[in-house]
């Protein structure tokens, strides 16, 4: 489990683990069957899932939260040659939340991956495009 906090207005000072997230990103689809991945997820929050299933397969989730799905494993295999989904899921997260402009990712990915950057940037962009989002119907 890893935590991430984003804030463009104030320095982030809270270093405690996150118990009530706005967004949950599920990299490993088998976790859905094992634990309650949405535990503590705020009402109206978003859950982003790596899955080969259709978005309709998660009716219980979409009743309470925004749901985004992406077959990140397939994209990672096709673009990177390995089933490592971190960059791909990042693309899905950006699509689902709009937290950061996707164009801002190019430089950091170059810095992180060097000669492998182009492949990762492609995986990120594909994931961004292929992510399906089912937004929570606001009541009324």
């Amino acid at each position: 489990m890893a935590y991430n906090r984003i804030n463009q207005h104030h320095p982030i000072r809270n270093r405690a683990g996150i118990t009530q997230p706005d967004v949950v990103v599920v990299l490993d689809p088998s976790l859905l069957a094992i634990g309650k991945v949405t535990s503590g997820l705020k009402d109206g929050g978003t859950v982003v899932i790596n899955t080969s299933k259709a978005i309709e397969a998660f009716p219980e989730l979409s009743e309470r939260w925004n749901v985004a799905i992406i077959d990140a494993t397939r994209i990672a295999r096709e673009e990177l040659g390995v089933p490592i989904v971190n960059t791909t899921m990042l693309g899905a997260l950006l699509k689902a939340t709009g937290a950061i402009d996707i164009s801002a990712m190019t430089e950091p990915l170059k810095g992180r991956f060097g000669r492998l950057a182009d492949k990762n940037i492609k995986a990120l962009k594909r994931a961004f495009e292929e992510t399906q989002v089912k937004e929570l119907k606001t009541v009324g």
Partner: protein
Amino acid sequence: MGKRVGVEVSIALADAVKLADADVIAAYPITPQTHIVEHLAELVAEGELDAEYIPVESEHSALSACLGSAAAGARTFTATAGQGLELMHEVLYVASGMRLPIIMAVANRALSSPLSVWGDHSDAMAVRDTGWIQIFTENGQEVVDQIICAFRIAEDPNVLLPVMVHLDGFNLSHVIEPIEMPTEEEVCDFLPVRRNPLTLHPSKPVAMGDFAPPVVYTEAKWAQEQAMMAVKPTILDIWDDFAKKFGREYKPVECYKCDGAKNLLFTMGSFSETAMTAVDKLRDAGVDIGLIRLRLWRPFPFEEFRAAVKNAETLLVLDRCISSGGPGGPVASELKAALYNEEKKPKVVSFVGGLGGRDITVAGFEKIILDGLELAAKGQEREYEIVGVRE
């Protein structure tokens, strides 16, 4: 001025060691220090840092190799955590006694048994009397800045003592956060080349590490202690110069919303930032509370600490370490000792929490503060309160 980039604190720390142009790094891998030394090994392997990386067979040998390296005049770095720091224990006293300016990063970790790789301050507190200058950090930027300052402090001709920079394991070491890395030119300008009054070299043979019979041991230790007691002005000067060059200020004791506060919470390390959030919330709710944090743990900044608490009525102290069978938290007992002879002093309430990587959330800090104020009013029944234990 360098760019502000998102980077793991351990990686940034290693990059700071590279900026300082360390000559010798001797280290043994231990969680949660590993990313620091892995990245240093990588920098050396890639030729980006011209240094000798000595992959020793234990922490005891890591610091021993540092003794030899520093004695032979090289700029020397090591990093460790928890059990590793304990295995170095006897070597720590030698480094300070021989006045060898070694820099060590400690990714603070709990001590076995039971085994725990996660963070607390048991390792740091066990080595508090080893004669090292010790600095605590609260975020990644401070880690980078203090590593660079540490080289300059240690090697200053008026100091010549080893320096430990503490960063909380995982809570700090493994967090990716925005950090502004100084440039090579800036660090070069700030950190002069190490000059050594005495080193091991045939051009001027010296004997280092004589034994001292009772008639001279006290003189030798007092000479060392005089050096330690005299370092604070140098540290303040170096931090001032750092602020001038890099725009970030550091003080031995740092205050957050303390002005006019009658009640103060005291923390060290990365928990301080979470505690600030709790202080913000309670202040908004009308609770009289401020936060003070200790950056310079050794030498202990008595004047600054006493000045910071002189108008306070209550001082709530959070320790991340148990002093077994003793007064609960080692920091709290030191603070009490520092205040004992003061005419006007706050009531001290001691808490121990955050052991072995146990989180304390913002709500957890709010509870500590509110419980602490209540205990201060009615009196603490035991030596200290344990935070968040299941009963």
